[in-house]
């Protein structure tokens, strides 16, 4: 799967309260959540973000609450992939489970700048900068997670397991 988009850059330790503040958690509607995506980190982001956008951040992205509303808001806002040096573990699980592509790549996270055009090959984990020279290799998903993603997220995977049990 090939992704192409513009980089939006964020810093270290972006927590889920910044991604989607708790005051907006009285809904589960992806569109409503998307309208407030990143509100406390960059109030302009939700209005400005273009479909296909690539979010790039530093270490520990998505730390804090377990709210799945965070990756849902990012996905519904039109973001096609999140690249960070490291992710907080619950956010990582949640993103996989709902089918939001994410890549851990400290080199790309450090080098990419806001406005850069990039292409991402998800299967290979290769990130290419089209604006300035730069190509980065990220660690591929563990095979177990590739299986979940291949089956279209965790729910599909569980459906298969239920069939086996029946």
């Amino acid at each position: 799967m090939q992704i192409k988009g513009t980089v939006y850059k964020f810093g270290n330790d972006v927590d889920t309260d910044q991604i989607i503040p708790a005051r907006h958690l009285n809904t589960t509607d992806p569109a409503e959540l998307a309208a407030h995506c990143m509100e406390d980190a960059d109030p302009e982001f939700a209005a400005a973000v273009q479909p296909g956008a690539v979010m790039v951040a530093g270490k520990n992205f998505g730390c804090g609450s377990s709210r799945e509303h965070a990756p849902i808001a990012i996905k519904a806002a039109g973001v096609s992939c999140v690249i960070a040096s490291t992710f907080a573990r619950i956010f990582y699980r949640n993103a996989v489970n709902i089918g939001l592509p994410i890549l851990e790549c400290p080199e790309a996270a450090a080098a990419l700048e806001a406005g850069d055009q990039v292409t991402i090959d998800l299967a290979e984990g290769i990130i290419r900068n089209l604006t300035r020279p730069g190509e980065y290799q990220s660690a591929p998903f563990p095979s177990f997670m590739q299986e979940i993603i291949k089956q279209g997220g965790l729910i599909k995977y569980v459906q298969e397991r239920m069939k086996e049990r029946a």
Partner: protein
Amino acid sequence: MSMTITEKIMAKHAGKERVVPGELINCSLDLVLANDITAPVAIKEFSRLGQDHVFDPERVALVPDHFTPNKDIKSAEQSNYVRQFARSFKITNYFEVGRMGIEHCLLPEQGLVLPGDMVIGADSHTCTYGGLGAFSTGVGSTDMAAGMALGECWFKVPESMKFVYHGKLRPWVGGKDLILYTIGDIGVDGALYRSMEFTGEAIENLSVEGRLTMCNMAVEAGAKNGIVPPDEKTKAYVEKRAKRTYQFYTSDPDASYVEVREYDVSEIEPQVAFPHLPENSRPVGEAQGIELDQVVIGSCTNGRIEDLRIAAHIIKGRKVAPRLRVIVIPGTQEIYLQAMREGILETFVEAGAAVSTPTCGPCLGGHMGILAKGEKALATTNRNFVGRMGHPESEVYLSSPAVAAASAVTGMITSPEEVLDDAN
């Protein structure tokens, strides 16, 4: 083959003799948990499975605690969605307003989580139950949905980090100070993906409440779980609550750790974490004099009876500073009742504090004490992220109940000793 306590619990629930860090395993679950924010998303996902039952109606806990008693119509709709699901799927552990509590105070108290258990919860502070010697960790709503259906969850076995706390605690230093100090030492990603095992003389001497507080904040260092070896204190806590059998696991003496850190606790002062990360912890002396607008005593970190007793001891016979709002939130109905019987609630109300029914409320900026732009709060909660308690330009400092109570009296961040010395 030697294993850590976390590895032993994981191996047992994966039906294996042995597991090693990095291994992907599928574990059976003793309990799955969600609240009024995460359950609606989980129930939606669960519905897509077309199942007419959960894996075990007695092993699903639904605790509406975040926006309850409901703060607005939308929250009421969400709670009602959870309530209706609980009814139609005959979930026995659904807790209604008036019989509830903050999930991580409630579940241990009700004996629903026990030593040796494997527990997931759609709430990041599910790691609290490590205080009882259980493996518990926070997951998202889709994991919760899968857990409700299968009674199973996949995990990557974490590497373990061991923390050894030597020596005796100073007065007014407790579990909250130890964990703030530790996070200050290793950083908010210092234990990312790892297990934090808390050991040593100071942990053995710590109450079960204090251990729950420490494990509660393991996630603030990025950890998958926090855990304390169970002992006589654990036994005394769980034996009167448990309705099923449980098992104590301890780490083998030669178990392997990716890192071991040792502290002399006699050098640790009461801690305050400055905005906007829990890792910004410093001795209370360095925060002395910071003027406050609000103090919150409560939450799944420090809303237990021991916490309220400590705060009441300091506040008793004194008044809340005129500039302040002080909000006290007992963690559960049982704690509320106990505090009432001990005269603790009277102490707070007489001092000029507001006492609320159990709720997460202000901890996540939900309701019951939201901060305006530019306001500062000191809270016994676990997160001081940007906007956590209200306006993005408000600030939250974190501390123990003792420091919060002393600060409630003076209106600025204050060491407990200072307030008590004044009395002499």
